[in-house]
């Protein structure tokens, strides 16, 4: 696959992933652009991989963690704008969802990454541990703390532990 074709096909998904991680579309745009710039330079090697997209996605994750590592403070706030009407849910649900985005954005970087990888990307904890460079038990404790901050009650809904 040519690099240009890859970008056309995968950039939207990478932007979604980066936006979920950063909670800011302009930061996600910057992040994805930076990563794709580096991918372009190494495309001959990356395109030959069995799963190039998984590799690029991991680059996005690493870039996000690296950016955040450079930050002195780790309490980013989300861009939460008043919604235009008509997304199909009620005002209470929208408020609840926006509050969740706000709390998500306030999570420490690794906690947020762990939550995103498990509940957005659907990764098992073992794979998350590999991505984050920590032990599985650490992943679970990070997620546990994150869920507490997010005020998510796991007993309120059937939950399948991913391992």
């Amino acid at each position, binding site marked *: 696959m040519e*690099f*240009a*074709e890859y*970008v*056309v096909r995968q*950039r*939207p998904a990478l*932007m*979604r992933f*980066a*936006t*979920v991680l950063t*909670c*800011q*579309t*302009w*930061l*996600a*745009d*910057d992040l*994805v*652009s*930076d990563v*794709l*710039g580096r991918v*372009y*330079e190494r495309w001959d090697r990356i395109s030959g991989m069995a799963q190039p997209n998984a590799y690029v996605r991991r680059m996005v994750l690493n870039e996000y963690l690296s*950016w955040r590592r*450079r*930050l*002195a*403070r780790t*309490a*980013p*706030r989300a*861009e939460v*704008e008043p919604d235009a009407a008509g*997304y199909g*849910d009620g005002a209470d*649900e929208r408020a*609840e*969802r*926006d509050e*969740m*985005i706000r709390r*998500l954005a306030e999570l420490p970087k690794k906690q947020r990454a762990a*939550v*995103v990888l498990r*509940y*957005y990307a659907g990764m098992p904890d073992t794979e998350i541990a590999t991505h984050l460079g920590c032990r599985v038990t650490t992943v679970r404790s990070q997620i546990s703390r994150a869920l507490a901050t*997010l*005020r*998510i*009650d*796991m007993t*309120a*809904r059937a*939950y399948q532990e991913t391992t």
Partner: protein
Amino acid sequence: MTDLRVLTDAFAELERRADAAKTSVELEPARRSRPMPRLVPIAATVAVVAGLGAGAMWLVPGDNAAPQVGSQSTSTVPTATAPAGAPVTPEELSERFQRVLGDTATFETTGPGTGVIEIPDGPDGAQIVGTLTVAGVTGGFDLAVFPAPRLPGDIECECTPTTLPDGSLLITGDSTIGSDDITRSVRLHRADGVQFVMLLSNESSPKGNGEKLAEQPPLTVDQMVAIVTSDQW
């Protein structure tokens, strides 16, 4: 307390925002078969002190203060009748930025991030990153100018673009990354296909990467708009 459904809804909403946000360096459909533009970092530390040109624009920090156009000296400030294309080097961009600012602001490009925005098979653009000082108030800025032709209706964002009399589209906004930082953004899609993206923070970096330098960014959004829409580029 809530449940995972709300987290799933939050992810879905962030995805929707991602889909709605057009990349700042996205090319028009006819050019998307080409590789993406990429920023080529260079180690550039260029201190630029504005002061060569007579006052093209007087910038006064303040919440609602609009830039005041000062008297112009035709000996040093060219009378631009047609907009120039995008600068192709950070040095050229710095020079033009200095010309637009006149003697009312100083800036220093520090990088990383300062460099050429390469657009394969097309003219390049440039980006400079550094700090900007106006009347003793300093903040971090990013300024990118690059060719990015668009088609009518190509702009989508979580905002309301303003269409200027010349057909350019203007998008402005404030955002926050940390607890007390402010980043102001101005994006201008000029009718001639040149795009300006300017971010300005009260911290040393608009990406939140650095120390807090002031309570407010050194320019208002209106002042930033006046800069990117200047005919001095």
